[in-house]
């Protein structure tokens, strides 16, 4: 699915940085008419390219001082096991993202915790207790940046 041009890409780039901008503000920024911006935004939404919005919060101010990425290898294989694991892992509130991956791990998780002690509690009580969880590797996030991508 394509058929989006450079103007659509520019709109996406602006919205990826700040989704709060009105069609009027975008129109002014891009030197376009407001109805033209509206039409493009609608098309981007309807086609699913604009999937939604994410609220950006200051994690530290909310008391989440630690973000850890976990690579998890399942100890056995089988369709049943994957479903059980996925259902259980997505229910853990501190687990922000779950990706099924191919490579040296089966799943990649993003986990937030108040501090390292809190992370240890989550790891021992919740992650290690997941059905099928085998080898676990943890890497503590130091910095992250999202890039605009090929737009």
């Amino acid at each position, binding site marked *: *699915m*394509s058929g*989006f041009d450079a103007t659509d890409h520019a709109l*996406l780039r602006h*919205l*990826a*940085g*700040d*989704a*709060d901008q009105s069609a009027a503000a975008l129109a002014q920024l891009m030197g376009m008419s407001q109805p033209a911006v509206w039409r493009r935004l609608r098309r981007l939404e309807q*086609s*699913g*390219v*604009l*999937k*939604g*919005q*994410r*609220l*950006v*919060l*200051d*994690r530290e*101010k*909310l008391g*989440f001082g630690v973000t850890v*990425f976990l*690579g998890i290898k399942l100890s056995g294989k089988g369709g049943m096991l994957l479903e059980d694991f*996925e259902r259980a*892992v*997505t229910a853990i509130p*501190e687990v*922000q*993202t*779950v*990706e*099924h*991956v*191919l*490579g*040296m*791990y089966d*799943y*990649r998780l*993003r986990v*937030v915790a108040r501090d390292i002690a809190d992370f240890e509690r989550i790891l021992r009580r919740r992650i290690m207790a997941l059905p099928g969880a085998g080898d676990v*590797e*943890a*890497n*503590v*996030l*130091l*910095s*992250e*940046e*999202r*890039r605009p*991508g*090929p*737009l």
Partner: protein
Amino acid sequence: MLDDLDRRLLRRLQTNPAMPVAELCDAVGSTAAVTSRRLARLRADRIILGKEAIIDWSKLGYNVEVSLRVGLDKTQSRAFDDFIAAAREVPEVIEIQTFLGRVDVRLSVIAKDMTQYQQIYRARILTLPHIADIEALMQVARIKSDEVLPV
């Protein structure tokens, strides 16, 4: 610092950042005046930093996403700075994260297909400075991606 109402607002807004204020008031059981004041304060205190649009890259034809875990040559004092500066120049890199752990830096790379991925990997990734080792995890599916903080 945050009370119960702030937390309820943040929980609602995280799951639906585009929720209109009227609906938000109903959901948290508060008046429009109080809700608007709280939201303004959460923004003024820089707890809410803004909103980002979520782009579905697969809808733009980018069907491959690979997570590259990179170990850097730490005998080079500028390894991190040089590597990150060069990675920013690759348009297909949509995320750059640094870690404390076995992995030093992780890049999320998107491509239209495996052929294009191979080209990017050979021409743009393997040529990045100070790489000591590199491992790839290919994304099969996103199981959970809301990144909601359990406030």
